[in-house]
Structures are given as structure tokens and as C-alpha cells.
């Protein structure tokens, strides 16, 4: 794929980003509650509330507020979060790696389990694996993530004691935080050469990753199975079989690579679902990511923080779609040539 068509795809994302900026602004204004009252504190009188309102620029009309918001954005500022008193951008940048690490681990867990399961189920319809796949898909889709998360905590922490206390990314009583390089604790601990801390961080990740990953398992397994069945029933697989190609070649080189396109598309979609479900999982596991940040911001009617979070998610979503497009181009030459 040429850099030109890459640029075109990036440019295609700009209108959606503009839309996102407008919608986030309006949405955050639609939140119930008055932030000025909240931040003036319980002891404030009408005058001090008014003062706070003016200092936040909330006394201006919506169009004026919007212009100010856009100008700030143009300068790379998302405003200050009222709850933490820090610039929202700093907060998000500091917390994003925690969420990313959790989401990626969950996705990895889901893919490693769901893709082989889907392939095997399609290769042998109505076999034991096929039924297992169907059962897992049903269970995975039926139970809400936070419920599974709570169940897991009860079972594996409270009853069995297999995992450490589900509070945060690393138990800092036993382990020391590695210096931040990537913000991914699994990577940073290894870079610091601290295997103990690596193990500690991994142990903390297991439950939230699996709870989140189970949710992603169902769509990926179902899509893999369906895409494989379509590919295996296609004319070109019949040709490959007629030419006597081995079962393995037919299954992987012919069917699986063709099915991959649908699987990657689903993975992109699932990844963005996961970014959303993160909010709940982070809350259950005391995970210091952007999801829990957003929840406290919403509760406090913290406009700037909420706007920042939504904007971040939207940008992540756009980038994700771009990545899926690029990968699709690698897999399928036809996508490449459509430009």
C-alpha cells in the first residue's frame, strides 16, 4: 500500500474527529448537576458559587464555551480536571498505559483461546469441540463482565486465595514500582530486571484480563467459526482439495488466511468494546486506568475530564479502525488495490 492511500485513509478520519469534538462538548454539557455548586463545596453561598462559575467560564453561552474549548484543543490543552487539579491530558497520559495493558492482555487471552477454538469447530462441525465452542460463546455472551469479575474475585481471591488482593496494578507493599518507561508494568518490570515485580504485576493482571477477555471471546470465536465455515465451503477450497493439497494446507494456507479478514475486522470491533467495558472492570479491580478516572469525573460533573476521556476513546477508535484497515490491506490484495 502506497503512502498516498495511507494518507487518504488518515484524512478520511478527520470528519469523524470533528464530529466527535462537537458531540463530546454537547454530551458533557448534558450531564446532570452543576459543577460550580459541586466545587464551591457544601458551605458555599450563592456568591461564591457564582465566583466559581465565572472562574470556570461556565457563565458564558454555549457557543462561547465551545469556541474556547476548540481553541484550547488547538493548543493541545484539554483543560484542567477539577477533581485532581491537574491538566486532563496529563491525567490521561499517566493512566492510559494501565488501561491499555489490561485491554491488550484481555484481547490476547480472548484471541489465543477463541481463534483456535473457532477453527477447530469449523473444521469438525458437530464434534465435541464444536459443542464446546457453542457453549462457551453462549456463556461468554450471556454474563455481564462485572458479574463475572465479582464472581472471580469471590472464588479465586476470597475462597481459594489463588490470586493477590484485587486492588490496583502492583502490590506496593511487597514490590517496588519500576521506573516508568513504557507505562506497561509487564514491560517496565522486565526492563528494570525485577522478575519478582514482574510476577507480582502479572498476578494482578490475571483476573481482570480474564474477566474482560471472556466478554471478547464470544464474538471472536463465533466470527472465526463462521468465517472458516464460509471459506471451507468456498469454490477455491474445493479446487484445492481437487488438486489433492494436504488437509493442513487447505485448512491454513487456503481457508484460514481467507477467513482472517473477517476475524481481524471483528477483533477491531471487539477491541473498542473492550475499551468501553474497561470502565466496569477497572472499578471492580481498583485499576488506576482511564475508565475509573472517567467514572469519578462523571460523578463530579467534571466537564473537562469527561470530554477528555470521550475524546481519547474516539481517537483510539479512529486509530483502531485505521490499523484494522492497514492489516486488512496486508491480508487481502483486493483491499490494497481499491486504494
Amino acid at each position: 500500500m502506497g503512502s498516498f492511500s495511507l494518507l487518504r485513509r488518515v484524512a478520511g478520519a478527520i470528519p469523524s474527529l470533528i464530529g466527535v469534538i462537537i458531540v463530546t462538548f454537547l454530551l458533557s454539557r448534558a450531564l446532570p448537576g452543576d459543577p460550580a455548586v459541586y466545587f464551591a463545596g457544601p458551605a458555599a453561598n450563592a456568591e461564591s458559587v457564582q465566583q466559581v462559575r465565572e472562574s470556570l467560564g461556565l457563565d458564558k453561552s454555549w457557543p462561547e464555551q465551545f469556541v474556547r474549548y476548540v481553541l484550547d484543543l488547538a493548543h493541545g490543552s484539554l483543560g484542567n480536571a477539577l477533581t485532581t487539579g491537574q491538566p486532563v491530558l496529563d491525567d490521561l497520559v499517566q493512566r492510559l498505559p494501565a488501561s491499555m495493558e489490561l485491554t491488550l492482555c484481555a484481547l490476547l487471552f480472548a484471541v489465543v483461546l477463541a481463534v483456535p477454538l473457532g477453527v477447530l469447530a469449523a473444521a469438525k462441525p458437530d464434534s465435541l469441540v464444536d459443542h464446546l465452542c457453542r457453549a462457551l460463546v453462549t456463556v461468554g455472551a450471556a454474563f455481564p463482565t462485572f458479574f463475572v469479575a465479582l464472581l472471580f474475585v469471590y472464588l479465586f481471591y476470597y475462597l481459594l486465595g489463588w490470586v493477590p488482593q484485587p486492588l490496583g496494578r502492583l502490590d506496593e507493599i511487597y514490590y517496588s514500582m519500576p521506573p516508568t518507561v513504557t507505562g506497561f508494568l509487564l514491560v517496565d518490570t522486565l526492563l528494570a530486571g525485577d522478575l519478582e515485580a514482574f510476577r507480582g504485576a502479572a498476578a494482578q493482571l490475571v483476573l481482570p484480563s480474564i474477566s474482560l477477555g471472556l466478554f471478547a471471546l464470544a464474538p471472536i470465536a463465533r466470527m472465526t467459526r463462521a468465517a472458516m465455515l464460509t471459506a471451507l465451503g468456498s469454490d477455491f477450497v474445493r479446487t484445492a482439495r481437487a488438486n489433492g493439497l494436504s488437509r493442513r494446507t487447505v485448512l491454513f494456507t487456503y481457508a484460514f488466511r481467507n477467513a482472517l479478514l473477517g476475524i481481524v475486522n471483528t477483533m477491531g470491533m471487539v477491541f473498542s468494546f473492550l475499551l468501553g467495558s474497561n470502565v466496569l472492570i477497572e472499578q471492580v479491580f481498583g485499576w488506576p486506568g482511564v475508565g475509573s478516572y472517567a467514572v469519578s469525573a462523571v460523578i463530579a460533573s467534571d466537564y473537562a475530564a469527561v470530554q477528555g476521556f470521550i475524546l481519547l476513546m474516539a481517537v483510539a477508535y479512529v486509530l483502531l479502525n485505521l490499523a484494522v484497515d492497514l492489516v486488512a490491506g496486508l491480508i487481502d490484495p483486493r483491499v490494497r488495490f481499491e486504494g
Partner: protein
Amino acid sequence: MSAPPLLAVEGMSLDFRTRDGRVKALDGISFEVQRGEILGIVGESGSGKSVSAYAIMDLLDDNAELGAARLDFAGADLLAGDRSALRGMRGREISMIFQSPRTALNPIRPVGKQIEDVLVRHGPVPRRQAKEKAIAALRKVRIPDPERRYDAYPFELSGGMCQRVMIAMALACEPMLLIADEPTTGLDVTTQAVILDLVRDLVDHSRMAAILITHDLGLAGEYCDRVVVMHAGHVVETAPVADLLARPAHPYSARLIAATPSSASSVDGLASIPGNLPNLLRDDLPLCRFRERCDRAIARCDSDPLPATEVAPGHLVRCWRPL
């Protein structure tokens, strides 16, 4: 015809188990393919032409139940051998090309690589030589500029080119038998002639035989040596092609010939065959499956199993009251 046939099918029956019952797709099919000939299998859609080929190639779905008194290929019994032996034979000794060539090729793999896959699978061919051989295979089916076409994807080639690629793939290992299942459906008339001329030429200049499956009797008349006419899972007539066209013995063959357009007749003058193929799900299929569409039926058609009458040397008909 004293030499043993290359392929001998005798008494082959095939049922599909479906949710609605058993589809009796083939019933007592027998035919032979001699070395160096093109055998045409002709019949309307649903008569069992393709499915017979799939049965020979072991490409049937799991719900198929195949039975045959004899299925011999080049002296080997295809029914006795285990399936992996047959898989090794597929693509090397017998290969097959299909209709709609553009979807019959892997859309995301360069065509040269697909030919290589077959070469590497069937012979001790090192990958480096495989590329040269694949290009040679493309050249053999007269694809212009084969070095460049090697890297092309199916969507970059025309339907005719894709069919040539598929033929190149099928012929890569120099099989003894090529089964062509409606190879020119969806191609324009000029391309159709080019493709079939190519097949004819390959048969004439190598030790290969071919089966051409088509619904077009005119096409069969032009390219085949002998023709098998099928109707609703029965072989109704087998004859040398000139013999069949001049003196069809089965009422169905005669109607098929009358329904084939030629340059002399106008569309208005074309005859159609009354009725439809009987539903093969039925449990009360008549002994002769053409019985309900036939205007020559006699009482015996309902009581006695189909005969196999030789009306001329090599011309067999399965009818109690042939023309």
C-alpha cells in the same frame, strides 16, 4: 475397444441424507473413459453430472452415501484404497477444473503460488525449481507473459485467463485424466472456444484423457469423442458422438437434440422438453425416471427394470421402447 479403459464406473449409486429425507442423486451409473478420448457427460441441471465427478474425485460432503459395484482407475480400485492414497492421486493422476474460474481460485494468493502448491505437494520439487515449473505450466496453457502473470492475483485476470490458470494447475503434474465440469460457463463464446480447443489439443498431444461435463449438447458434439446422456441420476444413453447426434435412441436424447439451438434454427423453432426432473427425494420414483415426461411409455416401463440395449456397436440405450 479391446484395451482396458482408463476409468471404469459400474453400478454407482449415491444418496444424500438430508433433513427432508434421502436424495437419490445417482442410481446405477455405468460408463467408461478410454485413454486418449474426451468423454462428454450431458444432461440438464440436476441430472447428476457434476455429482458423478465429485464422487470419482472423493469431493462429496459427509452426508453422501456412495455405493458402486466397481470404480477402477488405471487398474487400481478407487473404492478399496484408503482415502489418503486417493488424496495423493487427486491432482496428480486425476484432476479437475470447475466452472466460474474466478471464484474457484484462491482470491488472496498469487496464481503462480497456487500452481506451486500443487507441484510441491505431488512431487519432490524444491521450491526454487517449483517457480520455474509453475511458469512453464502457465506457458503451456498459452498465457502470454507467464513470468509476469505468475505474481498476479485472480482478480487481476479475466475469467478466461483464470480458467487457463486452473487448467495449468490441473495439468501441472501431467495427470492421466482431466475432469472439466462446465469449464466455460460464464465465459464468452470466443473464450469458450479457445479454452476447449486448448483441452482438445492437450488430449490429442499427450497421453491424457478427459471428461467434459456440459449441458450444451452442441458443445459436446464439437469436442467429444463419445457422449453419456444423463437424466435424473440415470445414464440413459451412451454413444459415439456422431452416432448419437444422427440417430438418438432414447426419447430424452432426441428431445435434448431438438432443444439444442443451431445456426439453422430460430429461437421460435426450438423445442422444449415438457415436465421437470422428478423430485429425487420421492420414495416412489418410477423405474424409468423419464417415465412421467415420456410420450412413448408402454406398460413394460412400469414393471421391468431398465434394460441396456446395444442398438449399434458402442451405442447403448436404457429404454424399453427406443426410437
